[in-house]
């Protein structure tokens, strides 16, 4: 590879999902999410910095800055160091030039915790988790504990693969896009807004066996069960707080498309399904919601259906008129589209990363993993979950003071015989 080829390689096009976030991001909509791990031993910042430097060489797609071209945003690889930062009480804040040096990720540490915060244009939850696992493996390696490159940990001695930084959406999409128009706006949880740079987080830990047992009674998966509970508690909240206006309750659930396409990409590669209930037709029982969610998710989470959905998303980006529109206009167009059709059409997001699997040698050194979504003023509350060893970790992030939804969610579990351990991220 000659020098000019190397230079060309250092510029990446944003994938289809990534194009949205630069146009809409601001202090209230940072578009940032976070994955973190609690280690057994306290974290040494110097070793973490060294591990980060090695990891970024292996995964160069995370060491980029967002640049504006004439027609599109693009990522430019920058060789400068990304410095690890001390953790803060308000995570997932807007990434500014000042706070991140223009980079789109932050690696934070505090006591036993290592956290990765990423701007959503860079990667999705699955990609971020691969980065975090690789970073922790490198950290432990540098601390004298050998960790093998298995179970999603990348081998930092190898060179980066082209596939890892590839945009998989075009190859996944079918030619015929799905025609689906969301007609009705969704219900939103209301409350007293927090200051714009604040987000409150409540974390819950639930034994996986108890949750599985409970889900098995209804013959559903854990994601289906959690989605049903979430819909039910928002429905109950709506019955109390919105007496006359019964807008539909729609959950946005990301689906990891890597399950349907053989790829190692670390960039965004997910689609959304939106199970919904329509309280205007009457009050739903939990059993009714479970059945609806189960059938809806199994019908929608189908490869062909998802391919058609991705094709519909790509249709706009491929439109020649949109492509020729200068970036400034395009940004305004995307922002307008987001304001009109974005969070107004779903109530909240529930993202389940699934079980986090790590190499056997790492298990003795990592106590838990966590996943936090950045909530925005549009939806006010988001829920993220992941499983690690014997527990499911559920995090609610909100930009309002009131904790009605979290309280209803966790007490629902307690009432169904599932023990829940709850703690707030912030000290009150």
């Amino acid at each position: 590879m000659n020098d000019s080829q190397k230079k060309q390689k250092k510029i990446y096009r944003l994938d289809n999902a990534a194009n949205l976030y630069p146009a809409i991001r601001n202090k209230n909509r940072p578009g940032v999410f976070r994955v973190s791990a609690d280690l057994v031993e306290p974290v040494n910042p110097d070793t973490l910095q060294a591990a980060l430097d090695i990891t970024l060489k292996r995964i160069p797609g995370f060491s980029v800055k967002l640049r504006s071209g004439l027609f599109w945003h693009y990522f430019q690889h920058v060789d400068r160091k990304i410095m690890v930062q001390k953790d803060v009480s308000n995570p997932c804040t807007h990434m500014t030039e000042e706070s991140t040096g223009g980079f789109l990720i932050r690696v934070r540490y505090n006591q036993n915790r290592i956290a990765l915060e990423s701007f959503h244009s860079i990667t999705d939850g699955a990609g971020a988790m691969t980065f975090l696992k690789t970073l922790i493996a490198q950290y432990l390696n540098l601390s004298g504990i050998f960790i093998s490159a298995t179970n999603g940990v990348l081998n930092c001695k190898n060179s980066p693969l082209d596939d890892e930084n590839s945009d998989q959406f075009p190859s996944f999409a079918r030619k015929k896009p799905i025609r689906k128009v969301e007609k009705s706006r969704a219900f939103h949880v209301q409350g007293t807004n927090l200051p714009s740079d604040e987000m409150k987080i409540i974390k819950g830990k639930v034994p996986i066996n108890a949750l599985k047992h409970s889900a098995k009674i209804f013959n559903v998966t854990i994601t289906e069960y959690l989605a049903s509970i979430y819909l039910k508690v928002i429905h109950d909240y709506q019955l109390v707080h919105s007496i006359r206006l019964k807008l539909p309750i729609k959950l946005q659930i990301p689906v990891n498309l890597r399950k349907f396409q053989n790829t190692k990409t670390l960039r965004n590669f997910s689609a959304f399904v939106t199970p919904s209930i329509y309280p205007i037709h009457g009050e739903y029982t939990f059993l009714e919601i479970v059945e609806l969610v189960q059938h809806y998710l199994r019908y929608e989470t189908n490869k062909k259906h998802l391919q058609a959905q991705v094709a519909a998303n790509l249709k706009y980006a491929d439109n020649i008129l949109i492509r020729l529109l200068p970036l400034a206009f395009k940004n305004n167009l995307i922002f307008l589209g987001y304001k009109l059709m974005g969070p107004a059409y779903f109530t909240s997001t529930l993202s389940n990363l699934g079980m986090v699997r790590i190499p056997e040698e790492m298990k003795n050194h990592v106590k838990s993993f966590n996943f936090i979504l950045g909530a925005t003023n549009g939806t006010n509350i988001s829920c993220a979950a992941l499983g690690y060893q014997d527990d499911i970790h559920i995090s609610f992030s909100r930009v309002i003071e009131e904790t009605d939804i979290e309280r209803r969610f966790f007490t629902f579990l307690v009432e169904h015989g599932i023990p829940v351990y709850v703690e707030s991220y912030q000290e009150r």
Partner: protein
Amino acid sequence: MPYCVNCGVQLNEKAKECPLCHTEVIIRNYKHLQYSERSTNLEKEMVKDDFDRGLWIKLMSITLLTPATLSILVNWIFQKSISWSLYVSSSVIFVWIWAISPFFFRKKNRFLKWIPLGWSSLLIFLYFIEWVSKFKGWFFPIGIPIVTSFFSILAILTVLITKKRIRELQIPSSILFGIGLFCFCINGAINLYNHQVFRLDWSLIVMTTCIAFGLIGIVLQQRPWIVEKLKHWFRI
């Protein structure tokens, strides 16, 4: 490990209250206090606004200084005097003060703090215009009452909104009442200046319309489902 008596969830050993319902944790086993994973010692990260205040001030200064300087130069070169350019440059200075001055105040209640400055700068500008123009005698009988009434109404509305004394549909209703009241002041001041008598005519029509629409807003405010629907329509 403590439990919340209200929610039934287990809590952190160090928890002072339940994060879900804020019920105080009374019984705690101090013997078993362990190292907590909670982020108790974390500082809050301050996120700066995307809006670059310094750039805005520089941009406005350059943009406004250029026409002001040019007009004075053109006036001087072609007429060997500074006459009409005084209007241009004084207007530019006035616009500059209005555009820049809000950023000299702290974010909290910025607008309310700015009102006295806005009021005084507008009065100075109008007084200057009267001073340089041929038509004299309008500043005290018309200028001061209109500007003062406008800023007084603006200040009252700002206090009511920021202190949350009025909310949702009461806000547009109050703004309508404010417009009606301001029209009273304009109408009264002009009639007093022209006919030396305080009389209200056209402003009564404006005020009646404003009251009618304002009352609709106040009545609708009593119906929460309408407020909720309007909020969704306008994506508030």
